[in-house]
């Protein structure tokens, strides 16, 4: 490969008591690609994602972003480095408004004295940006940007979380099961959104159990099994049943795929 990966992990280990969630796992993400991560339940996909998004610290191993070694102690540090994550739980505060949620932890303050000394929030600006981004990414038509997130449907909430990540992510966007809770129409929107984000040049890591979705949008598929990367396959050269066979251990992965 001549292209350098943007995000790599080598030999990640994470133990929870006697349970080994990550067993010397490797990971590579190249610029501008959609990398799907698939694996059986309990294979350690979510733990892997948590390690690269700063939600947990691996016991061993190293993570490099743009070739630089990084050690995220919190999701905030990963976020500051440009890695945005859409968690399975969405990480939205139900009682807060859409705009408040989009800017949670990176609020805009008013210019001048009121912002600097009275720490006043610039609500108008935040609401304007939130409305603009939601429209731009065409995900939802929300009448009232001030309404609480708990009043939205599941699909709309997902949309808010995805748009938040797409708005602020500068290096990598990670999506953990973004279509799991969605209907056909909403899933389509999220998949279109993934293509949209990709076309802006941002690489995406997509964790999903949904093989049609994975094969539709992914450029490469990382198969996770028993806490480590089993192989990386090309969706154009392998079928869905191959992928399922590898991840469940029904079939040995091809030799060349194990290196890729």
């Amino acid at each position, binding site marked *: 490969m001549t292209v350098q990966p943007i995000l790599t992990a080598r030999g990640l280990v994470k133990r929870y008591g006697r349970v080994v969630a990550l067993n010397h796992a490797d990971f590579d993400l190249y610029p501008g690609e959609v990398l799907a991560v698939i694996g059986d339940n309990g294979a350690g996909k979510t733990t892997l994602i948590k390690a690269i998004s700063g939600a947990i610290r691996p016991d061993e191993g190293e993570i490099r972003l743009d070739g630089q070694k990084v050690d995220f102690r919190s999701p905030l540090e990963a976020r500051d480095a440009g890695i945005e*994550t859409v968690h399975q739980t969405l*990480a939205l*505060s139900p*009682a807060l408004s859409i705009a408040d949620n989009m800017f949670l932890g990176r609020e805009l303050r008013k210019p001048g004295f009121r912002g600097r000394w009275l720490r006043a929030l610039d609500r108008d600006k935040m609401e304007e940006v939130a409305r603009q981004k939601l429209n731009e990414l065409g995900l939802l038509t929300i009448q009232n940007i001030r309404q609480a997130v708990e009043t939205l449907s599941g699909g709309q909430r997902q949309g808010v979380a995805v748009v938040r990540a797409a708005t602020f992510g500068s290096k990598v966007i990670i999506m953990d099961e973004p279509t799991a809770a969605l209907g056909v*129409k909403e899933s389509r929107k999220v998949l*279109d959104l993934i293509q*949209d984000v990709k076309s802006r040049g941002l690489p995406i890591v997509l964790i999903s159990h949904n093989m049609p979705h994975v094969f*539709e949008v992914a450029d490469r598929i990382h198969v996770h099994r028993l806490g480590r990367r089993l192989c990386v396959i090309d969706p154009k050269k392998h079928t869905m049943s191959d992928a399922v066979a590898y991840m469940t251990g029904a079939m040995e992965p091809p030799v060349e795929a194990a290196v890729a």
Partner: protein
Amino acid sequence: MSDAGAAPHKQDFEEVLDRSDKSVAAFEGHEKNLMDRLQHFLHGNPTMVPVIVLAISIIAFGFIAGDRFFSAFNLSLIMQQVSIIGILAAAQSLVILTAGIDLSVGANMVLASVIMGNLGVQLGLPAPVAIGIGFICGALAGALNGFLVTKVRLPPFIVTLGTWNIFFALNLWLSGAQSIRSQDIDAQAPLLKFFGESINIGGAQFTFGSMLMVLIFAVLWYVLNRTAWGRHVYAVGDDKDAAELAGIRTSRTLVQVYALAGLVCGIAAWAAIGRVGSVSPQSFQEANLQSITAVVIGGISLFGGRGSIIGPLVGALIVGVFNSGLRLAGVDVLWQVFAIGWLTIIAVAMDQWIRKVSA
């Protein structure tokens, strides 16, 4: 959006999506009775509940107890009477918004007032220094609660149950269980009684203490609603894990909340010296529970993240109005306590009823 790039990927069964019904779901508008409308209105404006209760109780006691209740003097007297519990309720609200509880607010306040009295009167330090140290001790006591809750990971109820006793014992030790007399304060450090002074406007007597209470609520309203930190307090109380993943340093926010609550207790200590006129280590023994009552009647959810800081101010006033009204109507004190007990239960029941409506 579905641009050309995404279209070829579409799966067969999704082809029909383009022809799908785009109209927004509409439902038969079923006839709503008055109760439904009220429930919907209150759901959209939950802060209105305590305000309405306050208005109704003032009018009701105006009829029952007559002019003596409805006078400007009596209404301002109610403000004075609730000022200390009101300020403590402000501190309590901050903690309850994070889904915690602070049983130590009253003990913290009395401890801070004993420290102010000891330093200012008995050691003869300048009053501003004594008051400043009292504030710092209040904030540190709050920070201790926050530290135990976040770093040692103990439930707030247990932590503050413990520190309540600890602060109370320290206060008895520092004071020798002796009050500092009013005339000694006047001689040594009259500034300690600043908040007992008042101005007279048309028969109404507003103490600086009651104005301080309103000021504290105004400042906290601004901080909670107009600053990023305030939004973080709500987010942490609403869903701590989500807030953490969204990039909020939840532990730091929590420690700051407890420390700020402690500082407000320290400020309440200064106001309490003015209100009582002396420094009494045995006073305000039930203040912590009364502050929780005011917060609950004010409509702040004990589960965190929901409610307006203005609610507890109104809640404290409701308690004051009930006590004053029942007393002027010649009802025994025990029935005042009885009424407040029911009021608390009804307030929470109302809250549940309002939340049940789907938006």
